[in-house]
């Protein structure tokens, strides 16, 4: 089978599963007996194995197979979760990631068999059957076992009773079945197993259901028909069929569907449904609920584990959290869309907005046509909404990127020999997809930086009266038109003197310059290329390639990075990113006869200032606005053109703000607010620092967009 067309889906899903596994195994480390987590891990590993097998990646399949074996033993309670085992599992995940990366780069998984890992996994397997599980343990085991069987009934085919007696039926189902049995109709049970390498299991299930329905009526299906449709089953599912036909006919009908491995069938005897069925008042997922309840209680009883508790598991796990309450998985109906298609949709919306702007500017000439103007206004609101919707489609939570960090910090603990705890908040904060993809590395670097340079060694921490465990915080939140991501630690902070001495030593600055520089300016030296104050180069950071890369990467995303630090107390790194990349609300202004756009997000107020109110402080022009002294920037000087103010005696000043910095931009004239589409100036025109792009106005003219952040 040619699978190359599935490669992209494969990579996407593999990454999702790996991320999920990482999160879940971290979870497992904290709560080694959480059956939900174990099941989730098992499921993810199983899917991975199946996918790798389908795609023909044998090494990957082998490794996941052995991992799955371990999980399966954990699930049945034969093996207890040990810290060493978690380490091995993480190494396996790294190996899998390596395979995935290889596949991504070359469509080939590489030649590393990872035999030592497989051996370690087998060692774990062989050590099983240690201490017998205590009674309480056993109870839970049962719960998880019941669930396990539901998920993979075929796995225990060797068991005495047929698989269909092992699942739980609710009362209404039982009464229906008993009723039809009384009527003398035949009730058969079918256990259908799909080929392991089947790509579209749901489709196969659908075909089987359809074929069987021709022979009779399906009374019950396991899992439910909704779950079948959503592919929420392993490789097999069960159907209870009410029919007048012979059993063989029904089996044959099911077998005729391709990619079906086996169909096991038998006469269904309702009397065999014992009292246990009556006890189960809810749906078939009842035992699962019980298990979940137990787990919830347990979680409450345990001391809070903020990292793992806060970190919501990626994708698949999210609905899982809900189904603890609801008892039924809530399915998000999603479609995977190529980002390129979204880009082209975005471009079309941009074109539409430009066209709309043209209409608006054309309509300003024609007065007294209220119907026309009404329609234009309507068009405006529609295009604005359309734009917002398209933007929303492109927005994804940063979760997918930040979820790998708890794992990273855990690994760092071991490499650095420090106790670290990562607290995350705001993972649900959404950003443009392209930004989310790019932002991972810079954040990772800052976190590593905090862990390595920021957090002190245990002895120093004890001396300073700080808790032994160093805390690193990763907070994300939306602030107006920006998304702010903060990396904070309670470590040593930046030693400004050390940075200064280093800079002087390296010849970056002269001692005289150093004496004049503010602390902030000195700290900013850290962002220069090849600057590292680490006394020794470690594996983690300190090679001097880092903060400058962080800065340039973030600036490439039209964002900025700042650092605040207090020696001995800690540092805060703040990354500020624009929420939207393509279309913004802006204020159009005129400077020296040329039109410029300023992003509305950074504008505080617009003031008319009398000439006499402009004062000179240290040879800089400032104004005193409601008790605040605000420096003025004459835009015509920055833009190198001649100012033609409308009124000689007063100036229009746009007060702009970035973080805690504030300034007044002196302009000639205001045009008004406008929604603009940001266009790049292209690579040919070398980045002009304070121009963030250009836009096309309604009349077809090009106006440049001022980057306020670069002006301040």
């Amino acid at each position, binding site marked *: 089978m040619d699978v190359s067309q599935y490669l992209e889906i494969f990579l996407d899903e593999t990454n999702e599963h790996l991320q999920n596994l990482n999160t879940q195994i971290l979870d497992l480390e904290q709560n080694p007996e959480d059956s939900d987590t174990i099941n989730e891990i098992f499921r993810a590993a199983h899917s991975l194995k199946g996918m790798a097998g389908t795609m023909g990646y044998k090494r990957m399949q082998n490794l996941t197979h052995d991992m799955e074996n371990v999980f399966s033993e954990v699930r049945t309670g034969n093996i207890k979760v040990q810290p060493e085992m978690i380490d091995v599992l993480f190494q396996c995940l790294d190996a899998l990631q390596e395979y995935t990366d290889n596949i991504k780069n070359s469509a080939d998984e590489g030649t590393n068999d990872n035999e030592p890992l497989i051996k370690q996994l087998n060692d774990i397997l062989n050590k099983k059957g240690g201490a017998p599980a205590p009674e309480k343990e056993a109870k839970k085991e049962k719960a998880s076992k019941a669930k396990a069987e539901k998920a993979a009934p075929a796995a225990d085919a060797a068991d005495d009773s047929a698989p269909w007696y092992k699942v739980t039926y609710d009362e209404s189902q039982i009464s229906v079945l008993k009723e039809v049995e009384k009527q003398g109709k035949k009730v058969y049970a079918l256990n259908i197993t799909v080929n392991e390498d089947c790509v579209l299991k749901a489709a196969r299930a659908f075909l089987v259901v359809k074929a069987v329905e021709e022979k009779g009526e399906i009374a019950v299906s396991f899992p439910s028909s909704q779950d079948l449709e959503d592919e929420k089953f392993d490789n097999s599912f069960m159907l209870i069929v009410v029919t007048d036909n012979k059993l063989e006919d029904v089996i044959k009908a099911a077998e005729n569907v391709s990619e079906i491995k086996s169909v096991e069938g038998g006469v269904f005897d309702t009397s065999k449904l014992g009292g246990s069925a009556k006890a189960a008042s809810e749906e078939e997922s009842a035992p699962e609920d019980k298990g979940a309840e137990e787990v919830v209680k347990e979680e409450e009883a345990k001391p809070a584990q903020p990292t793992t508790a806060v970190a919501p598991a990626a994708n698949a796990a999210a609905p899982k959290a809900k189904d603890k309450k609801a008892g039924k998985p809530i399915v998000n109906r999603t479609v995977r869309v190529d980002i390129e298609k979204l880009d082209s949709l975005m471009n079309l919306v*941009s*074109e539409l907005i*430009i066209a709309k702007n043209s209409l608006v500017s054309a309509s300003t000439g024609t007065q007294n046509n209220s119907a026309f103007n009404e329609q234009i206004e309507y068009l405006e609101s529609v295009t604005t909404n359309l734009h917002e919707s398209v933007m929303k489609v492109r927005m994804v939570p940063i979760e997918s990127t930040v979820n790998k960090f708890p794992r990273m910090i855990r690994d760092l603990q071991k490499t650095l020999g420090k106790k670290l705890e990562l607290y995350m908040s705001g993972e649900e904060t959404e950003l443009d997809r392209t930004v989310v993809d790019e932002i991972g590395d810079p954040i990772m670097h800052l976190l590593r930086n905090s862990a390595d340079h920021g957090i002190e060694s245990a002895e120093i921490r004890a001396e300073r009266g700080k808790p032994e465990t160093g805390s690193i915080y990763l907070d994300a939140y939306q602030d107006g038109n920006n998304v702010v991501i903060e990396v904070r630690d309670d470590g040593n902070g930046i030693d400004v003197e050390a940075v200064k001495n280093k800079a002087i030593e390296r010849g970056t600055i002269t001692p005289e310059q150093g004496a004049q520089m503010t602390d902030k300016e000195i700290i900013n030296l850290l962002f220069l290329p090849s600057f590292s104050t680490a006394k020794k180069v470690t594996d983690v950071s300190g090679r001097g390639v880092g903060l400058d890369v962080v800065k340039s990467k973030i600036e490439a995303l039209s964002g900025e990075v700042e650092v605040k630090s207090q020696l001995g107390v800690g540092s805060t790194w703040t990354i500020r990113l624009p929420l939207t990349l393509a279309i913004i609300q802006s204020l159009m202004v005129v400077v020296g006869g*040329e039109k410029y756009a300023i992003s509305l997000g950074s504008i505080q107020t617009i003031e008319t200032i009398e000439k006499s109110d402009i004062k000179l402080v240290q040879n800089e022009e400032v104004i005193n606005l409601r008790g605040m002294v605000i420096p003025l920037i004459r835009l015509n000087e*920055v*833009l*190198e*053109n001649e100012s033609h103010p409308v009124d000689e005696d007063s100036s229009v000043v746009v007060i702009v703000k970035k973080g805690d910095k504030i300034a007044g931009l002196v302009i000639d004239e205001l045009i008004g607010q406008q929604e603009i589409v940001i*266009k*790049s*100036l*292209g*690579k*040919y*025109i*070398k980045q*002009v*620092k304070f*121009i963030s792009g*250009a836009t*096309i106005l309604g009349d*077809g*003219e*090009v*106006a*440049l967009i001022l980057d306020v952040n670069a002006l301040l």
Partner: protein
Amino acid sequence: MDQLSLINNNLPDDGDETKVVAATLQYVVIRLGAEQYGIDIRFIENIIRMQRVTRVPKVANYIKGVINLRGEVIPVVSLRLKMGLEDDEYTRATRIIILKSEGEETMGVLVDEVKEVVTLSENDIEKIAHDSKSNKPMFLSGVGKHNNELISLLDLSMVTIEDND
């Protein structure tokens, strides 16, 4: 086709083209001051009339600014300034030639006038060897003979190479 309607002189007949067996290249002949130059037609996407160019501050002087070409913002470069001639004077004949070559960004170059399209056989083109020792920027890729006239063929890579100033 709109680009062709803007060219002042006649186009070569399509019939001519098919008869020629040897490899031929087509060049658009443009005027800069008193000189005539040829630009390889394969790199020309469009020829448009002069339009308002938005100045971009703090860029090299030969970058005139940016224009809106069907919703795209593209830079416009003055060939005159790039070649060290006097600054452009916009007339009715001034055109912006939109260049597009593979791997490069679309850009416009200002020319005083677009004259005609000529078809040159490869045999009629004499390549100019680049003198690597000379610091003088090279603007020409060769010289073509057409109707006993010599046409200097512009080397387009020069517009994308930055000046040192």
